[in-house]
C-alpha cells in the first residue's frame, strides 16, 4: 500500500527504541512488575496461583480506575489530590440514596454524579480562577471528605445487594468483573487520549499551554474536562469500593491518593505534563498491589513492609536509569 511505504522509513527501528532512555522510562513499571513477579514466585509458589492472581487483579481494580483519571489530570500538568475524598463522597451519596430506598441504579447514578460534580468544581476553579491545581484539589480534598461526613452523619451504611456482591466476587475465569471494568475503562481512556482530538489537546495543554492557546485550543475547557473525568472515575471507583467492602463509608481512604499518583509516575508519566500513556499507570497500579500482596504472602513483618515498599518503589524508578 502506498500509504504504508510512505510511512515505514520513518518508523524507528526497535533497536534504536531500546537504546532510548525515554523508552525505558515509560516501561519501568513493566520491568519492575516482571522482576517482582519473578522474585515473589521464586520465594513463594502460591504467588502465581490462579486464586492469588484473581484476588490481586480484583484488589487492583479501584486503584487502576483512579490512576486512569489521575493520568488525564497529570497529562495537563495538574494533579488531583481530591480523588480519594471524591470517591468517599461518591460512596456516601450512594449510601444515602440506597438507604433511602431509591434502588441500586439511582444510587449508582447519584454516587457518580456527586463525584463528577466535585471534578467539575475542581476544574472550574482551576481553569477560571487560575489557581494552582495543588491548592484547589487540596481544598476539595478536605471539603469533599467533610461533605461525605455530613451526608452520612459519619456512619457507614451496610449495603447488601446481590448485584453488587456478584460485581465484586463474580467474573470470567480469573478476571473478576471489577477488574474487567477497570480494563474497559483503561481501553476507552487509551483511545480517548491517543485517538481523539480531545486527547491531543490534553497533551498539548500539558506540554505547552501557551502554544496550545495560540493554536486556538481552549486550555480552560480542557482543564475542566480532565478534572471532570477524574471525578467521574472516582465515582465509578466508589461503586466498586462499596461492592468490595459491602458498605458505604465516609472513611477517608487516604492511601488511594498517594498510590494513584505513584502508579501514574511509576507508569512513566511526567508530572510536568504533556506526555502520558494509559498502559503505564495501569501496570504501575498492578505493581503496587502485587508488591503488598507478595510481601504479605511472604509473611514480611508489618514493620518491615513500609521499608520494603519504599525500597521497591525507588528501585522500580531507578530501573529507568540502569537500562541505559
Amino acid at each position: 500500500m502506498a500509504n504504508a511505504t510512505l510511512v515505514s522509513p520513518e518508523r524507528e527501528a526497535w533497536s534504536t527504541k531500546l537504546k532510548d532512555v525515554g523508552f525505558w522510562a515509560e516501561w519501568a513499571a513493566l520491568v519492575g512488575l516482571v522482576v517482582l513477579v519473578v522474585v515473589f514466585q521464586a520465594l513463594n509458589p502460591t504467588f502465581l496461583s490462579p486464586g492469588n492472581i484473581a484476588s490481586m487483579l480484583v484488589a487492583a481494580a479501584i486503584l487502576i480506575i483512579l490512576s486512569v483519571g489521575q493520568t488525564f489530570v497529570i497529562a495537563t500538568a495538574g494533579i488531583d489530590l481530591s480523588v480519594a475524598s471524591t470517591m468517599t463522597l461518591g460512596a456516601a451519596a450512594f449510601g444515602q440514596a440506597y438507604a433511602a430506598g431509591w434502588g441500586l441504579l439511582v444510587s449508582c447514578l447519584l454516587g457518580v454524579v456527586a463525584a463528577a460534580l466535585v471534578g467539575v468544581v475542581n476544574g472550574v476553579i482551576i481553569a477560571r480562577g487560575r489557581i494552582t491545581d495543588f491548592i484547589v484539589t487540596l481544598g476539595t480534598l478536605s471539603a469533599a471528605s467533610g461533605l461525605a461526613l455530613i451526608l452520612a452523619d459519619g456512619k457507614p451504611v451496610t449495603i447488601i445487594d446481590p448485584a453488587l456482591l456478584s460485581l465484586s466476587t463474580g467474573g470470567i475465569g480469573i478476571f473478576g468483573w471489577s477488574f474487567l471494568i477497570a480494563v474497559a475503562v483503561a481501553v476507552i481512556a487509551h483511545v480517548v487520549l491517543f485517538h481523539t482530538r480531545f486527547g491531543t489537546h490534553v497533551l498539548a495543554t500539558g506540554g505547552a499551554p501557551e502554544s496550545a492557546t495560540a493554536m486556538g485550543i481552549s486550555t480552560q475547557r480542557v482543564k475542566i474536562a480532565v478534572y471532570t473525568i477524574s471525578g467521574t472515575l472516582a465515582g465509578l471507583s466508589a461503586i466498586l469500593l462499596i461492592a468490595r467492602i459491602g458498605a458505604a463509608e465516609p472513611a477517608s481512604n487516604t492511601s488511594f491518593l498517594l498510590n494513584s499518583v505513584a502508579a501514574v509516575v511509576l507508569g512513566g508519566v511526567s508530572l510536568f505534563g504533556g506526555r502520558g500513556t494509559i498502559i503505564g499507570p495501569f501496570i504501575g497500579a498492578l505493581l503496587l498491589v502485587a508488591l503488598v500482596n507478595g510481601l504479605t504472602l511472604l509473611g514480611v513483618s508489618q514493620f518491615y513492609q513500609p521499608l520494603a515498599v519504599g525500597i521497591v518503589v525507588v528501585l522500580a524508578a531507578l530501573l529507568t536509569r540502569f537500562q541505559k
Partner: protein
Amino acid sequence: MTTTRPTPGVPGGAGDDTLLRCENVSLSFGNVRALVDVSLTLRRGEITALVGDNGAGKSTLVRCVSGIHRPQSGRIFFDGDEIAFHSPEDAREAGIETVHQNLALVEDLTVWQNLFLNREIVRRMGPVAVLDRRAMQARAKEMVSTLAVNVPAVRSRVRRLSGGQRQAVAICRAAGFSSKLVIMDEPTAALGVQETARVEELILRLRDEGHSVLLISHNFAQVIRLSDQVWVMRAGRCVGGRRTAGTTGEEIVSLVTGAADR
C-alpha cells in the same frame, strides 16, 4: 518621495482592497506602553512588512490581531468587518494564521501532531470521531518537504529538532491551511541560507496564490526584496509607512532609528 502618514486606508491610495485595518490600537502591560495609537492597513494579496527595533511593539500588535491579546482601546477591521477576537481560535476561524516569534510548538508532540494541532483530521466511527493518523502523517510529509532542507521526520518529537527545523515546522503549519492572512513574526531569524531562501520562495508563493502576508523582519534586505508595503514601528507607535517600490533600505533604517525625525 512623500511620507505616507499612517492614516487608515490611505497608504498607496485605494481603500477597497484593504484586508486588515488597525485604528488607534493601544495596549499597556502595567506601566509599559507596548502599543500607542497604532494605525495601519494591509492590502489584499500583498506582502506587508512591519519593522522596528527590539521592543518596538511588533509582536504585541501581532498578538492583538491573532486573538491572543485584546487591545485596550482602538478598533481592528478584518475583511470588511470590525473584529473582537475572544481567542486565537476565533482568529484562525476568521482566516488568520500566525507564525509566532516563539513558534508556538508543543515540544512533546510529534511534527505531524503539531502541524495539525487543533486542525486534526478525524474519521467518524459511529458516534465517535477518531483521529486519522495516517492521513495526517502523509499530508504532513508533503507539507514539510516543500520547505525544509534537512527534512525532519514527521513522527519525531519537536523536542529533538534543531532551532531551524522547528521554525520550518511552524511556518509549514501557518502556510498549510487555507487562510486569508498569514502573519509571520521573524520567520527566518534562526534559519540557514537555504532555508531562508525556501521561506522567501514560500512567502512569494503564498502571495501569488492570493494570500496576504504580514511579515515581521529585522532583515531589511529581505524586506525590500519581498514586500509591497512597509510599516515602521518605534517605541509602541507606528511612525510611518512606505510603498516598498519607492523606498530604500537606508530610508527604512532612518525611520526605524528615528534619524528621519531629527
